[in-house]
């Protein structure tokens, strides 16, 4: 019988996933495709962190056009940058907008089991 237990401490590798309902636009009828969505976030990064920020790699894992909800994945060292640039993004094509970050977790798996989403009654 083997019972090996290993401990791993993640350092550089780790990824962080954000689930964000994004963006809440002033004009509800505006539609955003996945590519436009990513482009928009890159613009935001570029505004706040310049060309260095625009070079940050992140993935749009899933994007739902109707609800404008997306799963983003970013290396953990880029989390603060990406998150803060989303926070400070205030307008999309001259209309006010806001990103609402729903959940942040080092594991994608944790995003599907958020007990705060439990709605009873």
């Amino acid at each position: 019988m083997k019972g090996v237990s290993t401990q791993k401490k993640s350092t550089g590798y780790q990824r962080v996933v954000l689930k964000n309902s994004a963006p809440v636009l002033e004009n509800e009828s505006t539609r955003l495709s996945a590519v436009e969505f990513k482009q928009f976030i890159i613009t935001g990064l570029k505004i706040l962190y310049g060309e260095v920020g625009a070079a940050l790699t992140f993935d749009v894992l899933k994007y739902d056009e109707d609800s404008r909800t997306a799963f983003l994945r970013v290396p953990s060292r880029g989390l603060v940058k990406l998150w803060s640039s989303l926070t400070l993004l205030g307008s999309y094509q001259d209309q006010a907008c806001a990103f609402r970050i729903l959940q942040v977790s080092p594991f994608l798996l944790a995003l599907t089991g958020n007990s705060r989403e439990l709605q009873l009654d």
Partner: protein
Amino acid sequence: MSVDVCEAPHCQLVCENSSFLDEENSLVSLVQQLHFNYKVSLLIPDCSSAPSHLDSVINSFSSFVLIKNMPVSEFIDKDFLETAVYPGSVCALSYRTRIGEDNCVALMPNGRLRLSLDRHSYHLLGIEGKVSKFRSKGRHIVSVDLTDSSMAPGGRGYDRLLSGLTCRLPLTSDFLLSHQQGVQSCLKSLLSRYDWSELRPEVSTKVLHQLTCPSDLGSCDAYSVMDWLGAVDAGISSSIGSSSSFLSTYTCPGPQRMATTALSISVSGFLLPHHVQILIMEVRQFLEQSSSPWASLTVHGFTDNVVSCCENEHGRLRGGVNFYTLLMSKGHDYKLLIVTGSHDSCSP
């Protein structure tokens, strides 16, 4: 970039390879120790419908009740102590309270009552507790063993707690309550006094078609396994891009194969560890008979839970994540992945 902006959240993943046949495996104790489970999700590849016995186990998760506006002092009510606490097997957790922000309460089956209080409430209650480990300013954890002799009704400790909870700090909250033998029969008198509703755990079954999965899940590293399972759970796998795609570079880890069907079942609610245990046994049995090479079971705990694994304190600033994944393969071997994370995961 200056240090502050590059700071990475860190978190630990404990990975354990063992076998069910190993007498010393820690699985049973781990499952039993996590009292407050929010969601169990199960993924079985190469399987299109759950066999009846597995199905019945999934549907046998006991129902729980939501009691509104109940004072915490009800937990040390003499009747309640005798019918529910002393025999054990009752679980209660304050609902719609957030750890780190509000006062949270948890009652564990072993009769321990744990309160996470802010400074002000802590001083009002006047029961000794510990300062929260997570440096949250002024947060205190009060832990009382209700089965202790001094906590028997009439005892000095009991009186103090009672006066604390009824007079100085009349804490009320919504509670989720679950009982191994069914709540209604055991706690009739309690329920009669409050507004309550009985709820059944929600079961959802999905059959996934043409799922790309790693051909050898066991040999992949733990992080990619977790990522992949998460992707499947979130429904991302179907839109997985290539490594050069603009939108996403996420790919299935390792050598791939296509599973024609896969079964994904999730149960969410207020689940008792006892039932999780039964489910694990059932899946084990199922694996031995079926053609599926492995099955994965993920158990998510409640985020706003005062206690985490091994009765340690759970705090969101450092332990927002609390879940474990069990990868079971044929031949009674399993791989257990526990996240003992220390990242302030966020869900506003």
